[in-house]
């Protein structure tokens, strides 16, 4: 096999990984702080894609309005997430995990139909913004500018989050909320706000991921339940609640999928599920996570 072919395969995996990182990082943040495994995260991702499509129709396709549409979609999903947490999910924190899981699954059912009712069941697509329509020849591989942008966006977002979580007072409170909710609230912090805020940030990331994926793949019903399993696999590999773990998990997932297709053409989706199972068996808290108390 030629090195340029392998490099192309690697870049493809990297692009997929950064998309997955956007989505899975939101899932991981929400789990890390709220201890809720949010099945509806995939639905937020799908709605982000549909919203972006809608906004692009309004601001005009094939214009730089795409960026506004994407940002608007992500913010819309953040607001939706905030409402869901405030009005409903909040009342289930004291209950067993099963109830929280089923609640988020109920959202999957409802939001999936909302999307179908609003946008129908056909395939929708969004074109790339004009500024990133071109492509570039990188070591003999043709890489669309848009993919390059995604590859750079992933680490940028990761660094922003690292900085906010580790170096600011807001980040300190969030980390404290993840460690000991009661202690934090007795110190006078508004834990309820932290929870709502984190759920909104997580939802924002899902919405952003959905919005940004639209120029690379068509929007179809069912993308919600497909992506959530992949996001689960990513966070499990890296460690539930671990931010850098999610980054690593996404990188591994992307490459396994990308090169798995070369080795076992049919079984690459099998390979990633198997990887998740192996990680859970050997190291349930993931590569970079810590065991839950």
């Amino acid at each position, binding site marked *: 096999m030629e090195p340029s072919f392998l490099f192309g395969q690697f870049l493809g995996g990297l692009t997929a990984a950064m998309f997955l990182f956007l989505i899975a990082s939101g899932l991981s943040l929400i789990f890390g702080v709220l201890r809720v*495994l949010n099945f509806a995260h995939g639905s937020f991702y799908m709605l982000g894609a549909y919203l972006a499509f809608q906004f692009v129709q309004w601001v005009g396709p094939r214009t730089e309005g795409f960026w506004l549409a994407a940002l608007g979609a992500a913010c819309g999903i953040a607001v939706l997430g905030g409402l869901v947490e405030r009005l*409903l999910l909040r*009342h*289930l924190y004291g*209950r067993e*995990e*099963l*109830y929280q*899981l*089923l*609640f988020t*699954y*109920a*959202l*999957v*059912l*409802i939001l*999936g*139909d*909302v999307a*179908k*009712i609003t946008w129908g069941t056909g395939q929708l697509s969004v074109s790339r913004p004009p500024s990133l329509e071109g492509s570039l020849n990188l070591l003999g591989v043709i890489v669309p500018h848009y993919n390059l942008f995604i590859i750079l966006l992933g680490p940028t977002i990761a660094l922003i989050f690292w900085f906010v979580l580790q170096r600011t007072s807001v980040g300190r409170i969030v980390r404290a909320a993840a460690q000991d909710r009661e202690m934090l609230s007795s110190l006078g912090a508004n834990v309820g706000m932290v929870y709502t805020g984190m759920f909104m940030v997580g939802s924002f990331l899902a919405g952003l991921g959905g919005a940004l994926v639209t120029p690379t793949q068509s929007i179809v019903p069912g993308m919600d*339940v497909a992506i959530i*399993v992949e996001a*689960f*696999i990513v966070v*499990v590999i890296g460690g*539930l609640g671990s931010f850098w773990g999610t980054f690593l998990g996404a990188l591994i997932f992307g490459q396994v999928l990308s090169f798995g297709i070369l080795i076992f053409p*049919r*079984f690459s*989706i*099998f390979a990633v*599920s*198997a990887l*998740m*199972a192996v990680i*859970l*068996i050997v190291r*349930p*808290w993931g590569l970079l996570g810590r065991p*839950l108390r």
Partner: protein
Amino acid sequence: MTRPLINRIPWTLIVFLVLLPVPFLGSRFYTFVATDIVILSLFATSLNLLLGTTGLVTFGHAAYFSIGAYTTALLMKNLGFPFLPSWIAGGLMAAGFALVFGFFCVRLTKIYFAMLTLAFAQIVWAICFKWNDVTGGEQGLPNVPYPGLDWMEVLPLIGDLRVSDKFYYVALALVALCYAALRRITLSPFGRVLTVIRDNPERAQFIGVNVRLYELAAFMVSGAFAGLSGALFGIFNRGVFPDFAFWTKSAEPLIMTILGGMAHFWGPAVGAAALILLNQQITSYTEYWPFVLGGVLIVLLFVFPGGIVGTLTKLGRRIGGRDA
């Protein structure tokens, strides 16, 4: 200690007898719905052996359902095996896989347990979806044959019925046997230990119970019955498809169980009946059944966490004047 009266009533037999006249109600549709309920209620009840009895939240029960369905369908369709051995083989195959997967799952707790069951189910799904030579891949296995039911012709009344009505009786009888078995298992000393594990695993460990071994046994038994249910469903559905193993299929028996009430043996069966009847009603008005189901589920989680049976029991106690 004598068992309370309510436990001494042979409920399985009563339900079985009540359901016998369904094909004579005059509509092919009633038989269809009743068969659906009977088969899927077994799926939900098998899950509840883990959920309600042992306190294990699994999100991958569809794996065993689909393994049973594929095994039986393959044996009957491709190898021409008779129904009964194929059905039993479906259950055994599901039990075997549940034993292997469960061995790893029961070493984990809570969310990790749920995630690993999900991971195994997705592996099964990926295999069903992609292994074209055996499972038919994305297209699945259509045209699974009905069992040979000619022997039923000698039976009075039933002999002249349609094949689907006859199959209803086969399913009803086999599921009733499964219920009798599951009921025995739940009330046996083994089942009691499972309840102890649910309520307090540490204490169970202290009094010398091998918690993992019991959980594994429960996992295997539960998987076996899920497989038996899936095997019947594949024939009823006239085909087996990879969707049977997808993670959303695992949510179905969970919803049925929560709807009926997981604290009661009959809860999942009641939930399955309620869910399927509701589905039939709703889908005649609108195609957006998931939307309605999601709404029902949310109301259930917030307002009636005990499910139908739980709420009725509470109501009954209040009317009876006893403290709930």
